[in-house]
């Protein structure tokens, strides 16, 4: 049992507010179950005053979207010298920007689907048709389109027919000014949670069992993520020993290369030839009833409360 007093931040103004509120509620419940005193705060104009008045032992960031994952809240907490669980503001920025994260991992020799990053202005100035054709020539079809920043698969689409590309671009650009287009890699989709100093005897990053994602529709979109019953999860992923080790290694490598700390979740694809492709990494993983981190923790015989209590202690110790 812990006697810590912490604040859980959730909500915010991002497109993922609803998911964040659910993550925050679940995390708060888990922490209370192990004796932690929890205040639940929205990230709004009262936040700084609350932080100064209450001075929690640590802050836990269950915010998703730019506020929670893009480093801005972390910067504020660093300015106020408030301990918090999770990666620092610089690492968050690297992870939040998908092309930056992919570039870092590719430079380290890790596989990630070929990609291009293009802002709306390029299509406008050079002509959409010509640029879209060039994208198809480079990446082939099907192709993944994602906002260069963002989570919960909002705005993300698999495009199988070139005729659908313009509509998919419009849908994607509704979430941001720049699109990340990736070659589509068929295979087994997995998510690997990495935690620092939680698994007995280790201070460094350790991968929890990979969760295999098998959406009924074939696409792990927003609906498949947040509607119980539409996706089957296999934990640990049904991979052979070598592939299981490879996805764990990839997740730990991503955690280290991007300078992440405490907790992260890497999403990857295991292709038919056994190659593990990095897709993206989340510095503030979802904690909802249908999220992947809690499943990984459970498969590892750990409760969410136990994991985050250990991470709270790490955060408090860092500030000493």
């Amino acid at each position, binding site marked *: 049992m812990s006697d810590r007093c912490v604040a859980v931040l959730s*909500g915010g*103004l*991002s*497109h*993922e*507010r*609803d*998911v964040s*509120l659910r993550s925050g509620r679940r995390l708060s419940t888990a922490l209370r179950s192990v004796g932690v005193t929890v205040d639940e705060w929205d990230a709004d104009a009262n936040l700084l005053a609350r932080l100064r008045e209450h001075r929690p032992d640590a802050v836990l960031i269950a915010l998703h979207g730019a506020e929670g994952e893009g480093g801005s809240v972390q910067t504020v907490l660093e300015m106020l010298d408030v301990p918090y669980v999770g990666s620092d503001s610089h690492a968050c920025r690297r992870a939040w920007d998908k092309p930056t994260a992919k570039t870092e991992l590719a430079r380290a020799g890790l596989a990630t689907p070929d990609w291009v990053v293009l802002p*709306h202005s390029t*299509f*406008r100035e050079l002509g*959409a048709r010509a640029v879209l054709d060039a994208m198809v020539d480079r990446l082939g079809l099907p192709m993944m389109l994602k906002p260069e920043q963002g989570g*919960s698969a*909002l*705005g993300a689409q698999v495009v199988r027919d070139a*005729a*659908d590309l*313009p*509509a998919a671009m*419009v*849908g994607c*650009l*509704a*979430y941001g000014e720049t699109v990340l287009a990736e070659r589509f890699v068929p295979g087994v989709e997995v998510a690997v949670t990495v935690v620092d100093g939680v*698994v007995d005897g*280790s201070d*460094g*990053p*350790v*991968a*929890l*069992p990979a969760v*295999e994602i098998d959406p009924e529709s074939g696409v792990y979109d*927003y*609906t498949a*993520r*947040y*509607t*119980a*019953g*539409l*996706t*089957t*999860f*296999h*934990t*640990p*992923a*049904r991979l052979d020993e070598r592939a*299981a*080790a490879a996805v*764990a290694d990839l997740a*730990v490598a991503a955690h280290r290369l991007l300078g992440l700390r405490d907790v992260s979740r890497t999403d990857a694809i295991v292709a038919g030839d056994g190659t593990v492709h990095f897709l993206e990494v989340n510095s503030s993983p979802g904690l909802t*009833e*249908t999220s992947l981190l809690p*499943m990984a923790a459970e*498969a*590892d*015989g750990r409760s969410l409360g136990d994991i985050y209590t250990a991470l709270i202690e790490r955060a408090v110790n860092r500030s000493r």
Partner: protein
Amino acid sequence: MTSGPPDGISTSTSLDPHLRRYAARAAGMTASEVRALFAVASRPEVVSLAGGMPNLTALPLDSLSTEVAGLISGEGLVALQYGSAHGLPELRDQICEVMALEEVRGHPDDVVVTVGSQMALDMVTRIFCDPGDVVLAEGPSYVGALGTFAAYQADVVHVAMDDDGLVPEALREALTACERAGRRVKFLYTIPNFHNPAGVTMSVPRRSEVLSICAAHGVLVVEDNPYGLLGFDGQTYPALRSMDPDNVVYLGSFSKTFAAGLRVGWVLAPHAVREKLMLAAESATLCPPTLNQMIVSRYLATHDWKGQVKAFQQAYRERRDAMLAGLSQYLPAGCSWTVPAGGFFVWVTVPEGVDTKAMLPRAVTARVAYVSGTGFYADGLGSRQMRLSFCYPTPERITEGVRRLAAVLSDELELAATFGPINQRAGSGPQVPAPDTA
């Protein structure tokens, strides 16, 4: 380093052990991006032109609290007890007086008090519709009604509207087409006054014509009239029910004229229908909340409720004017909109190439929310339309919201110019449940 389960055996879960047990009608009940975006609309930084929440700031809260306290202390043993599924007799008498303002002559025995008129709509659909039956509804139509029809697996066939409401010729054609296809049309669902979402009102001559067409085709009319007393100049229109009592089921509500949170509405139906509705109500809720009925009844008896409705009319007129002025000032060329003479909503049509459903994330980023027109059609139409509500924000916030929306629309037009006409996505239909309280 890797951690792992002690036995290494993979377990599989869909996170829903009841998956195989759901009825077919639950198939569409899934999480959606659009509904998630409405979570942001509740934050004060966002100007929500999305929800249909009545503006209650003009209510006399002090005297109401005294009344409620008096009810509990004086009549608590009745107020906190079960009641009849029919509803309190004195309230049913008063409901008949309210309906008389729109020329409805109903007997209190034929009124059933319900938990909001939404429940009345649910009961009417339950007793009339088998799966696959057809319900005719204006296109667009109230999203909450479409959700109810979908829940009972009825198929909605939309009937076109114009500035005078439902188009009789379109109704005739829809009925004929259904008959030719051998489909059973169970009723026409219509909101004749200050339509949600379209904002238009059915002209009086059309009312007679619509009733005649339905009678000729043997089709019942379900008249939903939550906004009828909210004409900005105090004008009212004869209810369809007043013109054909035997073939119209009338739904009424105190949600817009008094307090939505009390959830008190009613249905007035021909006697035989009323009997079935009462049994349906009994199985759904046993009885409507007694205390809430008594609060409404006391309010009608002791307060100048008609004066209060005038205050609501005034407040909504000011907000409507602010919205129309903002639309004229800020919206880009090629947009058009309806001019409501009452109610809560303006229906906006945007230039070709803009998909209002796809545009919503951009609007939320710009701190303004609306409801895409696709939510008001069962067949995926409406992507060039949006509903803007002016009932809840202050006039100043409405102006600011429209200004933000105009900037979003300009950006979206630029996208449309870049990528060309977009294939509109069909079949999206209404979200479940309705986002009318966002």
